């Protein structure tokens, strides 16, 4: 894994975490439902950094094996994988003390896409360095 990919992964993870925390606050003000026992600033930073670093590792593997086509394959896999992960917040069983589980997907489903959006937003900035 190159320094550039690690840097891109970390930056995209941080950006996704910032976006997720902003969205978390907006959702709380809109619904006044507290899901902080499941989703909170620390868990959002950890989740987004972890996903972005795994994505970076996958990017490195794919570009190592498939060279230039690796980036195309990666984008496809990352997008489809993110879309498939939508099922996680929809199917998850929350603690019974959590109010209004019906509204949890409204908070968590958009967040599933934040890492891939962040990655693709900053990707052009790192293209020159990688190629």
């Amino acid at each position, binding site marked *: 894994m190159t320094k550039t990919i690690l840097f891109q992964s970390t930056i995209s993870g941080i950006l996704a975490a910032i976006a997720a925390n902003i969205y978390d606050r907006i959702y709380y003000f809109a619904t006044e439902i507290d899901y902080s026992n499941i989703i909170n600033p620390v868990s959002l930073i950890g989740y987004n950094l972890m996903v972005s670093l795994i994505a970076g590792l996958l990017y490195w593997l794919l570009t190592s094996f498939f060279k230039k086509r690796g980036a195309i394959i990666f984008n496809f896999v990352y997008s489809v994988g993110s879309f498939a992960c939508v099922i996680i917040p929809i199917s998850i*069983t929350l603690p*019974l003390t959590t109010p209004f*589980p019906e509204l949890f997907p409204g908070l968590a489903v958009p967040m599933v896409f934040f890492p891939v959006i962040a990655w693709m937003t900053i990707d052009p900035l790192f293209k020159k360095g990688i190629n």
Partner: protein
Amino acid sequence: MKKQPYLLATVALIVASAFTFIQSQDWKIANGYSVKFDAGDPTGEFTGLKGTIQFDEKNLAGSKFDVSLDATTINTGNGMKNTHAKGANWFDVEKYPTIVFTSSTISKTSSGFEAKGTLDLHGVKKEIVMPFTLVNNTFAGNMEVNRLDFNLDDGKHPNMPTAVKIALSVPVTK
């Protein structure tokens, strides 16, 4: 001497009438109760418990439960499952919004008590036996209900156990 039978009858009536003043204690359902169910998947709980509890272990004949649960309060911890459970294929809460248990007799057992009565669930009334204890002003009990007895089946979940475990814990105050 002829008056003695009348005297005895009068005394007997006075004594008997005294027992009419012995009433079971009324209990109020306190906060912090839980009515949990376990059907493998899903598990969850109901809130919205209300009703009257008259219970005195020294006067079981005069004791009675008449309680109801708001079926719309079912919570499995998953919004999709909650919607599904409230729907027409399961509890059909629009048509049957409450679950009612009315006891007919309460008796003492080796481990506590048991209440026999009618459970009105999903439009079906069926006799059930509910074992329970009363410790530290908390009624607690575990039982199993066969969901098929109450037509709770959508035919799409063959692996779901038919016996649903129910765990009750109901703190009460006088």
